[in-house]
């Protein structure tokens, strides 16, 4: 497919750094496998964030140095990690009690589509793929705040912020905020609201690449 040149958005690293700025000191956070994991590298100095991985660790640290890993100390993506001072291990019922009982402050997940009412589709493209959900449905239904980090459009230029999801849902009305390469978008009572734009990107460009009405709420934010 030919692509028309669009606005130049942030890299994944820049998106991660932008999202990291909004995580409050002292938060308990679950970062989804893939791009959201990268946020951990950009937590600002002086801010303490405790990372939860649903397979049974609170206080997750970075990957071990080569040769120092333990195949039984892994994250939800099954990659070897480390445990920071103050960490704890627990079984799955406790781990998902943290999630389902509303004890985690924030989770950040990837998305195939987000709808204007906060519906999220991120676990299945339908068709012939092997269905696999993991903990995504538990996270979106139980964690206090649900953020999504995703490119604004697919590689083919198709908007991911839509009126109604076409892929199977992960949760209904669950997403609070979306970090894309082009903007930060809140899911408000009347649908999508841009609260921040990537430098060099205009509101009209974002609106043109969003498949649902979207408001410019940046001034409201400044006045606050």
């Amino acid at each position, binding site marked *: 497919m030919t692509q028309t040149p669009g606005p130049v958005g942030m890299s994944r690293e820049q998106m991660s750094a932008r999202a990291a700025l909004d995580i409050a000191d002292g938060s308990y956070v679950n970062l989804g496998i893939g791009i959201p994991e990268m946020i951990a590298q950009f937590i600002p100095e002086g801010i303490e964030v405790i990372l939860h*991985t*649903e*397979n*049974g*660790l609170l206080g997750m640290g970075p990957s071990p140095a080569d040769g120092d890993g*333990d*195949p*039984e*100390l*892994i994250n939800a993506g*099954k990659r070897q990690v480390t*445990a920071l001072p103050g960490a704890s*291990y*627990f*079984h*799955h*019922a406790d*781990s*998902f009690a943290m*999630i*389902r009982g509303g004890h985690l402050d924030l989770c950040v997940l990837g998305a195939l589509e987000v709808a204007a009412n906060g519906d999220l589709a991120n676990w299945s493209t339908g068709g*012939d793929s*092997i*269905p*696999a*959900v*993991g*903990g*995504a*449905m*538990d996270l979106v*239904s*139980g964690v206090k705040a649900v953020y999504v980090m995703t490119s604004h459009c697919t590689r083919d230029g198709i908007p991911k912020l839509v009126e109604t999801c076409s892929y*199977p*849902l*992960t*949760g*209904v009305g669950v997403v609070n905020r979306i970090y894309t390469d082009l903007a930060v978008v809140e899911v408000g009572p009347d649908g999508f609201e841009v609260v921040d734009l990537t430098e060099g990107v205009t509101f009209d460009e974002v609106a043109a690449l969003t498949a649902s009405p979207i408001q410019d709420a940046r001034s409201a934010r400044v006045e606050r």
Partner: protein
Amino acid sequence: MIDKRVADPEAAVGGVVEGATVMIGGFGEAGSPIELIHALIDHGASGLTVVNNNTGSGEVGLAALIRAGRVAKMICSYPRSANSTVFPELYRSGRIELELVPQGTLAERIRAGGAGIPGFYTPTAVGTELVEGHEVREFDGRDHVLEHALTADLALIKARRADWHGNLVYNRTARNFSPLMAMAATTTVVQVAEVVATGGIDPEVVITPGIFVDRVVHVASPAHESDLVARGVTYP
């Protein structure tokens, strides 16, 4: 005197019947009781329903059990793996059944099964295709779906240390589903790298009390799935 030790993995899995439901501990390779699974393959029971978060990797452990045609149905949350084609091939050709369950719901169903709770309501997965047909009930203005407990005939789990009573301590994130499965199965078999005499584990640090464990088998140097897969090992 209570002494739950058995001689070897073969003796540990004895008595499994055709069509049994078997819970197998582990999240990916962490906590996967490979030696017990291989003994179950050697045992020969088939038509099994297996509960595990995943479907194994390579052609060892759980993937080998599935490849050997012993599993009629998988109950799991994430049957995809970067390095196994065993489950996808059987699933696509309609030779294995899949019950896909959100991971927290899977854990809670097992916990409920062990705790004598026949079912519970949860908001997880409301409005999604995974709970089509489930009873829906409103609590405090929010919809919840009914989920049923899971129990099993046999649980195969792995821990780091046991005493003769079956009190268990695990290793890091290898704990995952095992304490829940130990509670939910009629017969729970654990493989451990270290066995100590009764009294050798501080009661304050016991994770699974021995009442939930029936057989303890010593496997001094358990294999790691990723290591076997990297070396191209297949079982049998």
